[in-house]
Each structure stands twice: as C-alpha cells, then as structure tokens.
C-alpha cells in the first residue's frame, strides 16, 4: 500500500507552530501529573512524537489541538505505567474511594476555618495539597483549574463522561478546601499554644 500523501505544507507548518505553542502547558501538566521531572520530559517528547506521527489524522480546527495534545500526553502517562508493570499511577482510586474521601471532607466545617485564611500566602500549601490529591482528582483539577480546559475537553482527555468530570472537580475542590481549613486550624492552634 503506498504511503499516505502528506498534508499541505501550509497546514503542516501551522499545525507544528500550534503544537509548539503548547509546550509550556504540556510540560507543566506532565510534571504535576507524574511528579517526576525526568519522566515529564520523556512524556512531553513522546507526546510530540505521537502528534507528529498522527498529524495526518488531525482533521479538526487548530483550536482543538490543545486538548488533543493533552490527551496524547495523558495516554502516554498511562501507557508508561502499563509498560513498567509497576502497579500503575500511585493512588489510583476508584469512584468509591473518591466518594469516601469527599464524604469525609464534607463532614468537617470548612468555611468557618477559612475565614481567617490569607489567600495571598498559601501558594505553597495549596500546591502541596494539589499534589496530594488522588490521581483521578488531581488530573481533572489540573486540567480544569490550571490549564483552563472545558468540562467536555477534559472528558475527552480522560475518556470519561462530562458528568464524572464535574463530580471529580467538585470533590477535588472539597478536599482542597478541607486541607486548607485543617492547616489553617492547625496553625491557629500552634500560635495560641505559643502565645
């Protein structure tokens, strides 16, 4: 079978420019997804390699290239763990586990403890809290809150229904609020004790 004819040169140049413009985002997502800088570089490189190989199959508008690249990266991350046969991404939780985590979070009063929170000084704390989220929640939260993907786009990246995306984002938020509230409460106790 003869090799497929290439896309038009013009289209291909635009495709590559568009792909390159998302390098920073993909790298950032890969780092927070894998929590490993070397693996992140490998995933990003593999993402671009796959994208180049699949360039001729990308027949949508270039505005859709961003979620498409994230999907490739996400799949590469999953495949990496399948290949390694080391048990998969850490803390892969089922929905039941997520529900339990969210339920625990909901039991605790959050808002009162967040009253005194200084949002300008919790970057590091919040980052650690995000890193500590279960994989399934962290992925959708990062795609949504940091990378600005829409529910439908995240659903496509993750291969799950949009409703599940919504519920996962909601759970992630609840867990994050809970963590911040607990930390805030802990800090207050410490300052009271030291006083």
């Amino acid at each position, binding site marked *: 079978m003869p090799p497929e004819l290439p*896309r038009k040169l013009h289209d291909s140049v635009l495709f590559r420019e568009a792909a390159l413009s998302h*390098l920073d985002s993909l790298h950032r997502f890969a780092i*927070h997804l894998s929590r490993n800088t070397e693996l992140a570089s*490998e995933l*990003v490189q593999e993402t671009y390699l796959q994208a180049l190989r699949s360039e001729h199959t990308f027949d949508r508008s270039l505005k859709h290239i961003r979620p498409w690249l994230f999907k490739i990266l996400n799949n590469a991350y999953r495949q990496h763990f399948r290949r390694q046969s080391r048990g998969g991404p850490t803390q892969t939780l089922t929905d039941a586990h997520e529900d339990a985590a969210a339920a625990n979070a*909901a039991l605790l009063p959050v808002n009162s403890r967040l009253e005194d929170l200084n949002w300008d000084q919790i970057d590091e704390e*919040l980052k650690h809290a995000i890193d500590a989220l279960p994989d399934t929640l962290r992925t959708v939260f990062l795609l949504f809150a940091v990378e600005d993907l829409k*529910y439908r786009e995240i659903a496509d990246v993750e291969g799950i229904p949009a409703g599940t995306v919504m519920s996962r*984002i909601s759970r992630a938020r609840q867990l994050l*609020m809970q963590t911040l509230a607990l930390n805030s409460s802990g800090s207050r106790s410490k300052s009271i004790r030291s006083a």
Partner: protein
Amino acid sequence: MSNRPSQSELIAYIDGALAPEKRAAVEKEIAANRQLRHQLRQLIKLRSTARKAVRDSTDPVPDALRARIEAMLQVEVQKPVAKPRTQVVSKPVKRNSPWIYPIWRPALVAGLAACIAIGVWVGLPSLNDPLNPSAVTLPRTIARTIVQDASRAGLPAELVSVVQARHLKCVMMGNNFEDPKFSHILADVGPAVRQYLGDSVAIPDLSSINLDFAGVGPCQVDGGKTLHWLFRNPSDPKIHVSVFVQPFSGQVAFDQNSAFVIAGPNAQFPMLVWRDDKFVYYLIGDDFGATSQTATKLGVGFGI
C-alpha cells in the same frame, strides 16, 4: 424548606455548568444570602490561587527539551517516501506500535558501545582501503566515557538535537536518500562518498550485527557538510541505526580518538560521538533494547 444550593451546585454555577433555570435560582439565593456569597468567593479564590500556585512553582521547560522538540518539529514536512531503487534497500516499514523515545537507557548505551567495542564499525583507526566496506576493531576503551551533559564532551546541545531529529526523520519516512549520486548498494557508494567528504572517509558496514545498509546521502546538520548513513535490521524493523559523518572543523571540543556516549538530559536518544583527525562521527539507534540484545548475543558486555 430551604433552597440553599449545595456546594456542588455552587461549583457548577461558577463553572457555568448549570441549566438557565437552575442558574437563575442559585443567583437568587446568592443575592439573598451573605454566607453563600462568602462561600462563593472562597471557591473562586481557590481556583485562581491554585492556578497561580501551580504555574508559579513549575520550572520552565528545560532548554535541551525545548531544543529537541523544536528540532523534531522542524523536520521537513513529510514527503512521499521515495521508491527504493534497488533490491538491496529494504522497503519503508510502517510500524503499528507507537514509537517510543525513552530517556536514555543503560541497555541502549551498552548496545551502542558494544557496536563500537566489538569492532563492527569502521573509521578508527583509518581503513586501509577507505572505498570498500570494512570492519575494523577499535580500542575497547574508546566508548567508556559516558556523559549526561553534552557540553562536558565539548558537544553543543543543539548539534545533539539536530542529529537526533535527522535520525528521527529518516526513520519516520522509511528512507529519505534521494540524491541519485549515492547508490543504494553499499559496495557502490564509495566514489560518491569519496567525492563528497574526501578520500580518507571510511565506509561503515554493520552487517556483522545484522544491520543492513539502507541508504546514504547528504544531510543538513550544523557543523558542516554531513553524510548520513542509515542501517536497518531486515528481520526486525524496530532496529535502526544512523551514522552521521562530518569533516572535523572544530565543531566539537574534544580530542581526537575520544568517544562519548551522550545520554541524559541533553540526549533522550542516547548517542555515541567520537572523532579522529579528519572526521566527527555520530552514531544513534532507536530500538535500544534490541540493539543491546544483539550485542549480548555477540558476547559483549560493558557492565554499564
């Protein structure tokens, strides 16, 4: 009965995911309830703070990775694969499995180093008859210097990236050697190679580790005039090895008869680089585990 929206509904409201009627109802509740407004502000603040925290704390893309990606994307737009001109050149292979370029793997380094150590390569020391494919045994110590940072080997990182991209291009396209001056039969390429790079240039022959000559041709690589040789395993299409040869003109800063395995952050495709008094050689493969296995079959181990 209270119509106070749940936190999930508030989140859906912020994200614009509520149906119009429900949205109106939530807005009405928010307007009437100070505590809800506060909760709403907290949720909005959470997203914006998370966004800022993650973005501010993430290291920028490493220069070497950026250079590799850019080089990869600069590879010319795919052209139809040229038809092989002789039976000697195997047909372009379309692989089903995704192409994987892992971060350097010891197996690769062992494989590449073994290629040199077992004397399947030519060029160092010079051949007696440079126009004929040959095998010359190299000093076994030559490939023992492994560096993770190309600059430590006096090698510009950009050059590593470009060589990698060229190898990638040729493998992806199956074969990209269209210059009619260069035969696709190894035994016939001598005159053209000699004319292009000079009388003393060597002709590589990797047939002893089951790698068939797949083509040779001029190639645009920083550092000067370059010839690119591509080899392919006829029984295992996953194995490709490229050898790039450039006249030495100071483009690398290491001594002659030195060789380096470039691996790690600068080269996610591990590469063997060495030079003699006249030429610089770059050897890069793509299926490193298989290459390593080939080396193992030959009884070579580097203990890396």
